[in-house]
């Protein structure tokens, strides 16, 4: 029982991270029909940016967090403006290859800036771990869960309550219809990139204390987030969240009960199963496009 609870805690923590990354994939996909394979690299930028701003420049935690997220979101928008928008024949496959290229570029840039070393970062607060029926919950895990909840709620309110959020939903439904109505769709796409990469930065910033951030951490996190988004249903906010948490928990249980070698394999086995059994994901709509 105690063991299960312990696995559950670690699963929830990882799951929350996967969920935020998956949300980034999912929201960008729904407004642009594009899978951004450089998304993991923006997570890396978030983590290393956070490390540099706090340890390197000595900024306090909160300003460093917001600055990191804003900076990475700006980088994401720059990416859209410079690499995605100018494409003359924006077919999905072309754009996807561009994002793969961007991911290699960003990883290279990360290596040049931060070197090949791993960094470490102190937790956001130095509370001792909390005992919970014999299992221990790290203070950073609580930070992660709280921040993820707040960010998700804010995103939900943004989509449901603000005109811009609704306009982005409209763009996701039909870009042409939104354009006709008078919504500047190019601006919406730019905003989607900013929000999506900003979410990636949030994920990176909050896990920096529990991983050892390094220039190549983004690939695996990005793929896990992608699996989670596919699992929950690409294009659905709640699907991405659900997929993220389920993936995190299944992974933790797999590691605990079967083998720790299974950790990374779990996500991909799950992805294959989803693609065979239910390609639209748990909460996705039935019409899945094939490239």
């Amino acid at each position: 029982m105690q063991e299960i609870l312990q696995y559950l805690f670690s699963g929830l923590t990882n799951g929350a991270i996967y969920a935020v990354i998956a949300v980034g994939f999912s929201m960008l996909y729904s407004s642009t029909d594009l899978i951004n394979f450089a998304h993991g690299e923006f997570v890396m930028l978030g983590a290393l940016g956070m490390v540099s701003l706090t340890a390197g420049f000595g900024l306090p935690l909160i300003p460093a967090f917001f600055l990191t997220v804003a900076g990475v979101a700006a980088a994401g928008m720059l990416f859209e403006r410079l690499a995605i928008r100018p494409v003359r024949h924006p077919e999905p496959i072309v754009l996807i290859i561009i994002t793969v290229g961007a991911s290699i570029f960003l990883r290279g840039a990360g290596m040049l800036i931060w070197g090949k070393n791993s960094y470490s970062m102190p937790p956001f607060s130095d509370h001792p771990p909390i005992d919970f029926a014999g299992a221990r919950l790290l203070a950073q895990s609580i930070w992660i869960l709280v921040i993820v909840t707040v960010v998700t709620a804010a995103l939900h309110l943004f989509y449901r309550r603000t005109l811009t959020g609704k306009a982005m939903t409209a763009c996701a439904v039909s870009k042409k219809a939104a354009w006709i109505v008078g919504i500047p769709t190019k601006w919406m796409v730019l905003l989607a990139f900013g929000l999506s990469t900003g979410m990636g930065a949030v994920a990176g910033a909050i896990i920096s204390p529990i991983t050892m951030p390094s220039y190549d951490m983004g690939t695996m996190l990005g793929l896990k987030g992608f699996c989670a988004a596919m699992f929950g249903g690409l294009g659905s906010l709640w699907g991405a969240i659900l997929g993220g948490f389920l993936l995190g928990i299944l992974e933790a249980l797999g590691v605990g009960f079967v083998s720790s070698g299974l950790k990374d394999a779990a996500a991909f086995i799950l992805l294959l199963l989803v693609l065979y059994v239910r390609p639209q994901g748990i909460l996705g709509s039935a019409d899945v496009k094939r490239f």
Partner: protein
Amino acid sequence: MLRVRNLKCFYGRIMAVKGVSLSVNAGEIICLIGANGAGKTTLLSAVCGLLPTWTGEIEFEGQSLKGLDPPAVVRRGISLVPEGRMIFPPLSVMDNLRLGAYTMYKKKAAEAVEQDLESVMTLFPILRERSDQPAGTLSGGEQQMLAIARALMARPGLLLLDEPSMGLAPMIVEKIMEVLEVLRSRGLTIVLVEQNALAALEAADRGYVFETGAVLLQGSADELLADKDVKRAYLGKDYGDFYDAV
């Protein structure tokens, strides 16, 4: 109000509209009729900025529309009710209407938007009843009304409608045409593209008959209704007479 001169529209190397000229005066209802592929929808796409590959002149209130994208055209005062309605099914009826007023909100005219909401819901009472429902749950006729109402929310001076009667029962078509009359009496100018030529010509002042990318005939609605060729080709009347004569 709207003036199109020698308009040629291209899809790649294919010319879909081959030198069309037409004019729309303020307060008129103009209808464009013609078979599938005659270039009517293409012409509307060119006017509202969806199709940038055209040559010739399109002037609205004396200013060229060359190079404007759809949001810029909407801001100039032209709204399109597109073919197939193109509402946003997962969003509520109310949200659809508010998004129609996107350009109005950006002009900081939120109060005007509230007035306009009131006025379109008076025009289409069913939308008030269903304002919280997702738009995708409306019937075809209600969706068409929503599409028209959404276009009105931008406060256009010129309303372009592409096949508003498509797939609707005759009674609902009649209702929509009545609404167009009401809108005209309030000073709106309307261009109506229709395959349902009879309903369109009965509502319109003047009409243009399109065939394979060119204007074949033009005249007042009454003249067109009486025209033998129009009757035969688009109104489905006198087909027997025509057949006997051959």
